[in-house]
């Protein structure tokens, strides 16, 4: 779990064009300043790093860093169980 959270934070820091220290409660748009392009960039990076597929339709309901970690965790678990 912690490794997934760390991986997510790492990606968020790389994609952001400003220095940020993301917290789980942060909103991607309102707090971290991501625009819709960067949100999709985060999605692509998450897919590559965790070897998962995130449906673009799922993205809007993912608002906070905790939502992202949660979704990735579930997708990784589903992949391992498959």
């Amino acid at each position: 779990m912690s490794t997934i959270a760390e991986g997510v934070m790492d990606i968020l820091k790389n994609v952001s064009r400003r220095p940020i220290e993301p917290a789980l409660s942060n909103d991607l748009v309102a707090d971290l300043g991501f625009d819709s392009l960067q949100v999709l960039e985060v999605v692509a990076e998450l897919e590559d790093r965790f070897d998962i597929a995130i449906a673009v339709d799922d993205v809007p309901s993912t608002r906070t860093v905790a939502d992202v970690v949660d979704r990735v965790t579930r997708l990784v678990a589903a992949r391992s169980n498959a």
Partner: protein
Amino acid sequence: MPRLRTLSDALADAAHADAGYWFLPAGAETYRSYADLYQASCRVSRSLVEAGLRRGDLAALVLPEAEPFLTTLFGASMAGTIPASLPVPVTTGDLARYLDLAGGILRASGAKAVITAKILAAAFERLRNGCPALEMVLALEDLDAPAIEPDSRPELDAIAFVQFTSGSTSAPKGVALSHRNVAANVEAINGPAGLMTGATDVGVSWLPLNHDMGLVGMALGPLYSARPGVLMPAATFVKRPAEWLRAIARFRGTISFAPNFAYDLCVRRVKAADLEGLDLSSWRIAGCGAEPIHHPTLEAFAKMFAPAGFRATSFLPSYGLAEHVLAATLPPRDRPLRSDRVSLSALTASHIVAPAADEDNAVTLVSCGGALPGHELRVAGEDGAALPERHVGEILLAGPSVMAGYYGQAEVTARTIRDGWLHTGDLGYLSDGELFVCGRINDVIIVNGRKYHPQDLEWAVDDLPGVRRGRVVAFGIVEPGRADRVVIVAEASGTAAPDTVVDAVRRRIGDLFGLYVDDVALVPGGTVGRTTSGKVQRAATRARYTQSKMAGPGVKS
């Protein structure tokens, strides 16, 4: 110039060619020949007539996917109704506010029908209470009448379609284009002075079809020349920019247009591994337009993709706007970018452009070429008279591509088109007969190739807790050669914590428009002035904001 044709005639002609669209939605791929598309469009056309739609009725299309959108557009046009593309929800995160916006457009435009996917039909059905003219909400899946060709075809001067880009206020602006407008622009672009589209050309695009460059340039362009068009969703590109380049390589694409930001996204995000085996040597027209062109971006792109066979001479920077169908100017093909390094501070209206003396105060502008054949271009002073070369003024356009008007908005149309000249609201200058675009005199904000009207952004956040109603101003900070910065200044009502208000503003604009607000400034009551007619004083607020930013952190943000 070839004979000008209506949309349905162009489609009927293309149906005889061995060509069509490739649709590349995520993880799938379908080919539809123009002959298949013609049949499907006849089906839609017949369904609309059976549903009771008549010639001249406005039918609003809310269809995010490319194939149904095009089939419905062609079918509705064939039936003699006027198809209108509405903005589609960016996310479903704030569907209620999106429906308010869509409802505003439907009400003001007097749309008779909405055509949408089944899952959205119920939501639109509920809007009918507030839209007396809206007689029917049709689910795309139900448009399955037999494919019978219509008895009569639309005239060349009938409205081909309307593109609504703005909606919130009482007077939504929908650009209405006649078949003549569309055909004149497409044929001029495809013609010998433009792309010279020929028997080996293949278009590749990820641009959305409710965008002029996506619809006219990359969908109708191939159709009118009966050549293949490859269309992928915008989200696929934004998620993985390399997918665009891979599609060009795989389909041996020759023509692809995109706004500046797309080239920038490729430079920043395409990885070394993506470059392996990538062959872009077929790409002879790399169009760039729809937003200010940033010279360093194109240079960086050319350098990065030269090993993949990309040629810098493929770049075709262009200027245009939806009110002129798509393109207004194009430079000659196959030449290096022509650029002009000029002093930033001289690039305002009525100034003479000066070469850059001080490097900190300089910008490189890229030539967008000259007017299309059969069209006219003028850079004018405030009195409308043409200015000499290298004088900055408003860009005016005349000719067969100038829109029929804003749909149902005679007054705004008359202000925008005067004596046959379309007043673009954009600033530029001519040098050796070629156009350099360097600013804007209207309020439009351009981000990632999309235009946003400040009134829409203001309306969108007006009802949020903590914001004083009617005391919100949105504007862009426009600097040549840079992307616009989006600013919202709002009077705080004190009923919500400032941080919460700022978050809510960003989230609302993100949900509705997919746009990030660079700065949300909450100001005390009485700061945002109003004109005597009750409109917010946008220019005055922007001037105060800019001054206080230059003076230091005066406005809280």
